[in-house]
């Protein structure tokens, strides 16, 4: 019996789908237009794939998808849970209350229920004060009365010691029963406000994620895919079981970028490279490091809120396949405005009246498109050669500058081109040791999702003066492995993908942040 996996990835223009066989080889790929509600697009991509590929539904063992549901909910402030916020740290931290600098509409949407209680730790792991269990209980009772749907708990220095968060969660559970609880220690790193914000947002989008998952699940059932397992793509290029995604939806908000980066690795086997993912509206440039997307080290602003959690490092530029070419005062520029999925109607080569980046590449003979309704000669006749050349140079300059910005060293690296709009780019770029556009490039994102490993990244802080370094590393590794198994990995296949130690300057006691990533094959 063949074992097929279906990968789906939602982009701003298209929703891509790919089916891979058990060796990871792409077997079928296609695209549908992304719909405003996102869900409809995912469901029709899934249906289309099952129908057109001819695979028997019994042979599909897993569906993995990366979606923008959670991100959209944060940006539009729709469908968010009302969150009960508990911060453990009194007498410290009162000078900046939770959600102080959040946009007012977002703060309102999550319900403005926050409580500060005594407890928390110093960087050494000593208690600031004992946990005020009574205050936690009272807070939970108040949340229950107010109809809070989800609880976010953050304690000072929980990346060093999470005891107070864990104890508070037990008390909340006793009072509120089966309410979802998010703990900051499993979400972010040192930096209380950013970690607390990420934890609150995680709590707020749990409902949206549940809805998304249940819609996909019921379509799978209708298509006869009852036996297939469901996974979600994460920000770090790995996947987690749908159950875990409902607990940690924040880890899925930037999955699209990572799916493409990971897909580039799967299609080429190259472990260290720059990945240029050109869609219809934007080009995202990310980095492959040891086979996974490189992580960003700076704070991330989500929906107007400063947060920190695992995000891929990438540069986004407003130049892609559907980008509109403009001539102003004799100067030619491209994007950021785009015709998006309407390229096949509005583009010059399709008989439309808008000059797009794709038209320019067609006019100069830089690419060909396998579509009978696309006629490059229209672009060649209608676009003056000089304008086409200038526009094409503009596109290349933007991409080359993006490549240079994302690099951390001046040495040239292989550049892998992926995405639906990638055919227009040349096979020579500044800063690239070689430029590769692998077969299947246009569906790299969906292929990346379909072939992804289960993964878990954890970050903890240790004082190597108090904990022996090897013990600390062992502790972090076993926690990452445990988390990977919880996320759906086959225990026998779990291995450590990387260990990173970052020492914290100016502190005595040799305080070190340890980041560990564990990956394994999905247990199917």
């Amino acid at each position, binding site marked *: 019996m063949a074992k097929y996996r279906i990968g789906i990835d939602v982009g701003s223009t298209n929703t891509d789908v790919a089916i891979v066989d058990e060796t990871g080889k792409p077997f079928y790929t296609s695209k549908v237009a992304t719909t405003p509600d996102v869900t409809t697009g995912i469901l029709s991509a899934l249906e289309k794939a099952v129908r057109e590929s001819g695979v028997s539904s019994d042979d599909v063992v897993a569906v993995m998808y990366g979606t923008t549901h959670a991100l959209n909910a944060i940006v539009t402030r729709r469908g968010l849970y009302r969150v009960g916020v508990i911060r453990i740290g009194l007498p410290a931290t*009162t000078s900046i209350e939770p959600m102080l600098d959040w946009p007012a509409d977002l703060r309102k949407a999550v319900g403005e229920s926050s409580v500060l209680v005594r407890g928390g730790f110093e960087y050494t792991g000593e208690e600031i004060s004992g946990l005020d269990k009574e205050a936690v209980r009272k807070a939970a009772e108040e949340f229950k009365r107010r109809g809070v749907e989800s609880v976010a708990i953050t304690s000072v220095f929980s990346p060093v010691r999470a005891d107070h968060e864990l104890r508070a969660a037990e008390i909340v559970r006793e009072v509120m029963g089966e309410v979802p609880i998010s703990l900051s220690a499993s979400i972010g790193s040192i930096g209380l406000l950013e970690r607390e914000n990420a934890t609150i947002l995680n709590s707020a989008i749990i409902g949206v994620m549940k809805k998304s998952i249940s819609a996909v699940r019921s379509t799978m059932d209708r298509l006869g895919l009852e036996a297939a397992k469901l996974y979600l793509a994460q920000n770090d290029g790995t996947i987690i079981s749908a159950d875990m995604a409902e607990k940690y939806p924040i880890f899925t908000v930037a999955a699209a970028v990572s799916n493409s980066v990971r897909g580039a690795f799967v299609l080429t086997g190259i472990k260290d490279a720059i990945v240029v993912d050109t869609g219809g509206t934007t080009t995202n440039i990310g980095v492959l490091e040891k086979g996974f997307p490189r992580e960003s080290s700076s704070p991330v602003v989500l929906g107007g809120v400063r947060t920190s959690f695992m995000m891929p490092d990438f540069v986004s530029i407003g130049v892609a396949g559907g980008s509109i070419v403009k001539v102003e005062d004799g100067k030619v520029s491209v994007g950021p405005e785009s015709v998006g999925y309407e390229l096949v109607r509005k583009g010059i080569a399709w008989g439309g009246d808008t000059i797009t980046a794709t038209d320019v590449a067609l006019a100069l003979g830089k690419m060909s498109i396998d579509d009978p309704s696309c006629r490059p000669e229209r672009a060649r006749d209608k676009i003056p050669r000089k304008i086409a050349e200038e526009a094409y140079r503009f596109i290349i300059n933007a991409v080359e500058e993006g490549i240079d910005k994302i690099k*951390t060293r001046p040495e040239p690296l292989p550049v892998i081109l992926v995405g639906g709009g990638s055919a227009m780019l040349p096979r020579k770029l500044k800063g690239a040791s070689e430029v590769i556009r692998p077969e299947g490039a246009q569906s790299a994102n969906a292929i990346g999702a379909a072939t992804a490993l289960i993964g878990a990244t954890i970050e903890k802080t240790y004082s190597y003066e108090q904990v022996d370094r090897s013990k600390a590393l062992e502790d972090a590794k076993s926690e990452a492995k445990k988390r990977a198994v919880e996320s759906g990995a086959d225990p026998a296949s779990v291995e450590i993908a990387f260990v990173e130690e970052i020492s914290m*300057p100016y502190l005595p006691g040799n305080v070190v942040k340890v980041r560990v990533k564990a990956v394994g094959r999905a247990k199917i």
Partner: protein
Amino acid sequence: MEKGEYRLRKEDVEDLAVGAAILGTGGGGDPYIGKLMVTQVLEKGKEIVLVPPESVPDEAFIITSAFMGTPVTLIEKLPSGLEALRALEALESYFGRRADYITPVEAGGLNSTIPLYVGGLSGRPVLDGDGMGRAFPELQMVTFHLYGIKATPMSLADEKGNSVILDTIDNFWAEKIARVVTIRMGGWASIAIYSMEGRQYKRAVIPRTITKAIEIGRAVRDAKKHGRNPLDAVLDVTRGFKLFEGKMVDVSRWIVAGFAKGEVKIEGLNEYRGKTMKISFQNENLVAEVDGEVVASVPDLIVVLDLETGEPITTERHRYGYRVSVIGIPCDAKWRTPEALKIVGPRYFGYDIEYVPIEERVKKAGVGG
């Protein structure tokens, strides 16, 4: 309100954070935490009143208010806010005298905002001046020290309610001992330090630096709103010089005696193409050279800005590929005497070069404008 006094508004806080980050010259701690603290105090209906130094009576009693310690512990264990008040009150009770005013010690970075918070919380007016006109890493690198004012008796307080009064033989010992106390208090502490009378303050202070920081921030905001280059706005307000424009191509870092030192190389772009700038830093930017020739050094301010957004870039964010412009701003004249240069000149930081005011260096090198 007295003549020349200024009541701080919420939008000023936003501007101050931007201006303070620029005057922080790459260090001084992120003003973000301080900005939020001041915002909260204003939202709770407290008033923050800024008073120009020249209107302070000779016999007025002034205490300097600040945070001391490692930023990484401050961003995790946020202040209760009360420790800042407690530090102030501990020192007041030691002297048996209530402070008539509080003053900032630095105009750059986090500590430009802390005294405003304390002023708002305690109802004491805050003086519009400081002891640096920028940010520096050590307690004795202030004009107050230069004018013979003692750092101690000083107090340190934590959020738990602990406080310490410290009396030392000189300001260097104050730095050394206080540093140890901050560690035991959890990595950082609120301090009340450099207490003095109005007549001493007026001689030693670098005046009008808080409103200057606000003005810088406002100029950047206006420039962005009207689609103008924020860099020009900063140069205008600070009487600064554009020194360079380019791309960071190499960053190296090392730790010496607890300080984060390093160097960044910037390859010229546009009119600076073909030239290379090197900036040496220790928390703050210290020395800038173009093709081996020094174009600016401490105590003058060297500020690195994002080429596109005009946002100041702190030294810990330096990395390959960053497109930046570099500007130099003349320091206050008080820093340009031989005595002052002994404590904040390039030699104190271990660079064997002569301090030459930036105006002269720029004229000689023919760069900038």
